[in-house]
């Protein structure tokens, strides 16, 4: 090994075209999983604050399980474990999306619960006192306000989930980290390539942060 190791910018740049082929998969898995996770989060977050215990406890069980176990274990379970149960293979990308959806869904459930519960009780009373139904009071008054308060926490979860997709290199999804590993296997330029991989993650997460900041600023009008 060369002691006077020089960072090889050319090697770093040269790896980019190959690494970029991983980006669509990283984006597909993270945003596909997050979109489904958001739906799960809305449903289970609201179940969690239902007045009916029968609806509350399944939501609590789901949240505790998927928040309390590692995403890596979840995806291994789905990719290697579930096929034994259903008798057929599961596509690695599907397994990745499912793992993100279930894991982020558990966290987002708690974000939704917190967001909705943070709205002052007077808002609900004002809606009801005007004759709005409970559903309309939620839809037009509680939810829009709760959603605005949830944006920062949702942004955090988005960033966490994007980074979590890097774990799925272990099940062979051709996402960013996996592409890096494949490339390094032939070029042995680990330093350069992993730096590039890191920068690409940063580019994705910073774009998301920026977009959310715009959204948040817009949402602050009238608050």
């Amino acid at each position, binding site marked *: 090994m060369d002691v006077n190791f020089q960072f090889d910018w050319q090697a770093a740049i040269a790896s980019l075209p190959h690494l970029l082929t991983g980006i669509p998969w990283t984006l597909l898995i993270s945003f596909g999983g997050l979109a489904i996770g958001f739906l799960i989060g809305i449903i289970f977050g609201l179940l969690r604050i239902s007045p009916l215990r029968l609806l509350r406890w399944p939501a609590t069980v789901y949240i505790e399980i998927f928040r309390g176990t590692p995403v890596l274990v979840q995806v291994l379970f789905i990719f290697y474990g579930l096929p034994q149960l259903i008798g057929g293979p599961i596509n690695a990308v599907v397994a990745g999306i499912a793992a993100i959806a279930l894991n982020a869904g558990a966290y987002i459930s708690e974000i939704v619960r917190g967001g909705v519960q943070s709205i*002052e009780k*007077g*808002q609900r*009373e*004002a*809606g*009801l*006192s*005007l*004759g*709005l*139904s409970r559903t*309309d009071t939620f839809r*037009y*008054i509680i939810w*829009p*306000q709760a959603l*605005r308060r949830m944006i920062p926490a949702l942004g955090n979860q988005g960033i966490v989930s994007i980074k979590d997709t890097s774990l799925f290199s272990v099940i062979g999804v051709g996402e960013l980290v996996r592409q890096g590993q494949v490339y390094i296997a032939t070029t042995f330029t680990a330093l350069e390539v992993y730096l590039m991989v890191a920068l690409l993650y940063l580019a994705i997460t910073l774009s998301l942060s920026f977009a959310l900041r715009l959204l948040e600023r817009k949402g602050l*009008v*009238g*608050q």
Partner: protein
Amino acid sequence: MNDSQQDSTAPIVTMEKVNKYFGSLHVMQDIDLEIAAGEVVVIVGASGSGKSTLIRCVNGLEEFQSGRIIVDGNELTPHGKGGKSLQTIRTEVGMVFQQFNLFPHLSVHANVTLAPEKVRGLNNAKAREIADRLLERVGISNQADKYPSQLSGGQQQRVALARALAMEPRLMLFDEPTSALDPEMIGEVLDAMRELANEGMTMMIVTHEMGFAREVADRVIFVHDGRIVEEGTPQEVFDHPQHERTQAFLSRVLKH
């Protein structure tokens, strides 16, 4: 639909033997009360006496455990089992809250048009027309596109009044409407309420503004420990209180 709405002398609100508990605390004890159409009733009492709870029972924001409440022919039964009549009552009873409770994510205009559109099914143009008229009436018409947080407390409370009136209620409830306001803004809200009273609106008002109560009330009700201890005209209750609780309360609030 029923006799009470055809009979103009029938009370708008009837409470019969209404009891309510918060845990072991008996916050409303055998409340019997009738409010006639067009009557302005001011409810006074020390904080914690149950006066807010009383008016919050009228539109079902609080449940009660026994007795019954009939609002404009619609009956509320104990334990919040109002069902359809609860919904009907809420469309016909407006409420103004101590903390205004305007919808902060909606413009002043949208605050007022929301319920007429979603509950009454009015189209936007018609709802806006009503909102314009009401905002004009409470003196907020030039602020209609602002958001609640951009208004002063007094302005916000006047918007809240317009919002409630947009449903064309038969009865208005006021739960300490000026208690959260800076002193210099109390007058403008009381003016708007006075105007409403003069137009014949039926009103139940919980307030600490004794001067206002004396001026606009047809009847003053004094509540102590969840009971109606004394009631009568403002002159009777304020100038010649019969009950020692009333006397003690008035001597405390009228001193300054």
